[in-house]
């Protein structure tokens, strides 16, 4: 008996919990933490990490100087593109 009462309470609570947002205004907006900005920040972080790794590989003697300069310039160009997008936001 107690079990069925507990289950009935759970059932009612679940239904109320789900239906409650439907009682809000139709044009409700959902809080958004600017996932696009976060994504560009993440891209920036990845590019920084790649530059750091490249620097390290160069220091360790795994990359020739010319390859190092070319790749680093490519990565820096990409970083500046990301930064310009972020500055506009």
């Amino acid at each position, binding site marked *: 008996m107690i079990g069925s009462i507990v289950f009935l309470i759970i059932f009612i609570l679940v239904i109320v919990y*789900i239906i409650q*947002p439907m009682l809000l205004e139709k044009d*409700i907006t959902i809080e958004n933490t600017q996932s696009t900005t976060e994504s560009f920040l993440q891209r920036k972080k990845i590019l920084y990490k*790649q*530059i*750091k*790794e490249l620097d390290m590989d160069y*220091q360790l003697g795994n990359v020739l100087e010319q390859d190092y300069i070319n790749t680093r310039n490519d990565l820096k160009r990409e970083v500046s593109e990301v930064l310009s997008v972020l500055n506009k936001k």
Partner: protein
Amino acid sequence: MIPVIGGLALNLALGLSIITIILLSFHLRTGDNRLYLSGQRAALAVSLVSFFATFVLAQLLLSSNFDVDYVAHYTSLETPTIYKLTALWAGQAGSLLFWLFILSIYGVVAILQNRRSQQKLMPWIMIVIATVQLFFLILVNFVSNPFVPTDADFILANGLGLNPLLQNATMVIHPPLLYLGYVGFTIPFAFSIAAMAQQEMNALWIKTIRTWILFVWLMLGIGIILGGWWAYQELGWGGYWAWDPVENASFMPWLTGTALLHSIMIQEKRNMLKVWNMTLIIITFTLCIFGTFLTRSGIMSSVHSFSASSVGPIFLGFVFLILIVSFSLLFYRRAFLYSGKRIESFSSRESGFLFNNVIFVVMCFAVFWGTLFPVISEAIRGTKITVGAPFFDQINIPIGLLLLLLTGVGPLLVWRRTSKQCAIRNFTIPVTVGLVTALILFLLKMRGYVLISFSLSSFVLTTIIIEFAKGIRSRMRSQHENMLIAFWRLMRKNRSRYGGYIVHIGIVLMFVGFTGHAFDSEKEFGLKVGEKEHLNNYQFELLRISEQERPNHYAWIADLRLQDSEGKTITILQPEKRIYFFRSPDPDRRQPHSELDIYNFLNSDIYSIFNGIDTDKGVAYFKIMINPLVSWVWIGGYIFVLGTLISLYPSRKETVI
């Protein structure tokens, strides 16, 4: 009453999963955010109600409520409490509910963690998770319900009890970890379907998915290693891997998951291989469902048991549904996924990773084919052709050695292009070490795979040690740090890279352990108290046999003195012969079981099995195995876990370039 509540909770969860899918689908059509919020709440509610149902079953098992068929089948009054709890995943119905339980945990974490940062993808992510939940809810509601009452007109005094093989400490954690791996791949799959459906796959998406993949891959890896450890400790045949279909079922998604971990890095760094990565995610997830199907359908024992099994066809149908829907979406979105970029050089890290991906997939296909061949042959020709360990060894040992080689080559390649000069400089010392090792082993009369495996292991270890040494030396020079601080900071600032190298060290040590199998030796003999036997340089003396009556079994315990060649006592081995359910009036119910005792050295294991006892003659029968290098499999496993944890640990600082 409580079992009825469990059943009702499963009904409610089923209804809620359907409501989730409907609400979120309408939100995607109409853009009405109220539907999104309700759908999100319904998705959370499915998980909460599934938790509730799982706790109800756990409570029934712990309280030995034999009114429930599942409880009566997998526990008895004598079953120790911890194993009553592990009975939750011992049978089909319970394990399907446990699958749902883990998926619900992952679902709640994925929703709460990403509901803001991945808002655009969330409706699709929740729909996919709810669909997989719905599938398992259909199974536990209508096909294999764990709350079905006992089919008896009388009250059961006791249950049948848990299989003795499952009454082992490893079995407490091995299945949950394996499930954490299997089930966890649902989340990257959901993210991938969402990304393709919404045509949004940004850097944040890659970061999220990579962390999930790494975590669930680790869980699956630990689960597989623990499975091997359990087989070694419990099954008494002296090995840890037998290419059994159930083992293969867990190994296949681990292989494609490993490939994915490497190729997702290429997507992260070069924005390439998106179609390939989507394909790998779909295949890995499908293999996880397929693995559950292999384990739970009974198909592997016989095709006929498959036809008799009710979950088999449903699982197979779901597998096909996943493949058709996912690959159709992939084809439909191919233009969005196409990056237009190409690998710049054959001697680049991208190229190395791609090559290792191909090898992993080939290995997975070989395992898949070997696993399913008996079923296919029986279905087509009516005769079952058994594919045993020799087939798998023949195919997979060369592939495995090729992967071992790539483990050493990968760290020496850099992104985009490795110049010829750098390649020659980096490869010279490791290749020389590998060749010198090969020469020494050749002179020691080692040949074939043993020689190749040890030589490649030395090559790979050298490459990794050199990478560490170069990094430490560079820091010592540029930052004026001492060696220990340089090592610590090198690791801390490059967790992903050096964590990966540590994983590779673990893999190499495991290969060393696998190779030790070539030197195994064994002997079977009978001894009376006071008698001795020899194997290799060891002597075994039976000191005494004692008997003990324990709560769930009766045991004969042998005291075997292990001595070295000089007669010095190393240890007293105590293998046991047990009879489970010994109080049962039905002799057929009594189950004999050999509990092993293993003495571990770093270079070999002494593995003792108490085969049986002739009480009339007073003779005890033993099997002793000497298994060289097995410890290195487990040491490698620990290092593998450590390396993955280092890679997983989030970095806090962002460096300004």
